[in-house]
């Protein structure tokens, strides 16, 4: 009974912090005030202050986790809405996303390997370029640490949102489709929000890139890890 009450309490707390963070983000929008960051940080501070172990917080957290898999399924809807774009730019889209997905997994894995980290860390880095629910599914399947994976996904999202314009200038990239492909493949939903600032077309291409790259990375990451270990 007691775990149940704790669970309900933490569930309410999480939802409460999330909606406050959303409010804050609407006042100060920046990659550092994203609701996921502010909410998680507030809860971490809360747990720290009251000396509550993570496992106790998870009495409530585990219920929320049940939505992670079904959320991946939900991504079919935005992809379906972009189907005309896929048709129009088919070759560019598939070449770009396939290249980017491979480079993302390989460079992440090789850099981490060269730093001397073990399999559970490397498996958590491998899917960092894809949207959180998919990265967690992949990491769960490959035996990596899911919480580390969530952090790496966030790093990929924020660094992309901050430095993509610099990369585009360096490569003299002007076409909104090219921009959307790059940022969507590397930085998922956080990147897509940034792409929308560039143009509606870049945002739409970024949204479909993040879903297609999620499918590709879910094939590539386990394969690369299998070859390595």
């Amino acid at each position, binding site marked *: 009974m007691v775990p149940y009450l704790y669970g309900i309490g933490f569930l309410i707390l*999480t939802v409460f912090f*999330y909606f406050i963070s959303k409010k804050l983000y609407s006042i100060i929008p920046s990659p550092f005030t994203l609701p*996921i960051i502010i909410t998680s940080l507030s*809860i971490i501070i809360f747990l720290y202050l009251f000396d509550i172990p993570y496992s106790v*917080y*998870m009495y409530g*957290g585990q219920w*929320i*986790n049940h939505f*992670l*898999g*079904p959320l*991946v*399924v*939900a*991504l*079919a*809807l935005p*992809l379906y*809405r972009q189907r005309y774009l896929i048709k129009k730019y088919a070759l560019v889209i598939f070449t*770009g*996303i396939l290249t*980017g997905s491979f*480079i993302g997994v390989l*460079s*992440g894995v090789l*850099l981490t390997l060269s*730093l001397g*980290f073990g399999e559970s*860390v490397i498996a958590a*880095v491998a899917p*960092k*370029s894809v949207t*959180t*629910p*998919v990265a967690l*599914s*992949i990491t*769960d*399947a490959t035996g990596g*640490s*899911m*919480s*580390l994976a*969530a952090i*790496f996904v966030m*790093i*990929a999202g924020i*660094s*992309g949102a901050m430095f*993509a314009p610099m*990369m585009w200038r*360096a*490569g003299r990239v002007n076409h909104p*489709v*090219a921009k959307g492909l*790059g940022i969507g493949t590397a930085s998922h939903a956080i990147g897509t929000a940034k792409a929308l600032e560039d143009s509606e077309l870049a945002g739409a291409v970024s949204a479909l890139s993040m879903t297609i790259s*999620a*499918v590709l990375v*879910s094939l590539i990451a386990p394969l690369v890890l299998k070859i390595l270990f």
Partner: protein
Amino acid sequence: MKKIIYILLQISLLFIFYHLGEYIQSVLNLTIPGSIIGMLLFFVLLLTNIIPERIISNGIDLLIKDMPLFFVPVTVGVIEFFDFFRGKGSLILLAAFLSTLLVIFTTSFIAGKLLEKEADI
């Protein structure tokens, strides 16, 4: 009230596809996650209009809009990795950062070149 029941049914559909995907994954022993298989199945049923977009969209859009809420518990788990990041672990953050910039640069660059070529033809 009717609206809430609709939304609950639409969201349950996602759970059904998810478990179907997990089932297919375990039976066929695939390395691709069951959730992705469920997503692809759902996508095909949308494309073929077996499931029309309008009968499922409001519940799913509602869920997608607040998707980050569902990542909070896993992210809070980083609390168990503080020592890791205080040490050598912080180097991986740099690795993830560099790898991300590399992906944006190469993908956008290659796509840009291909688009220029297509425009020339």
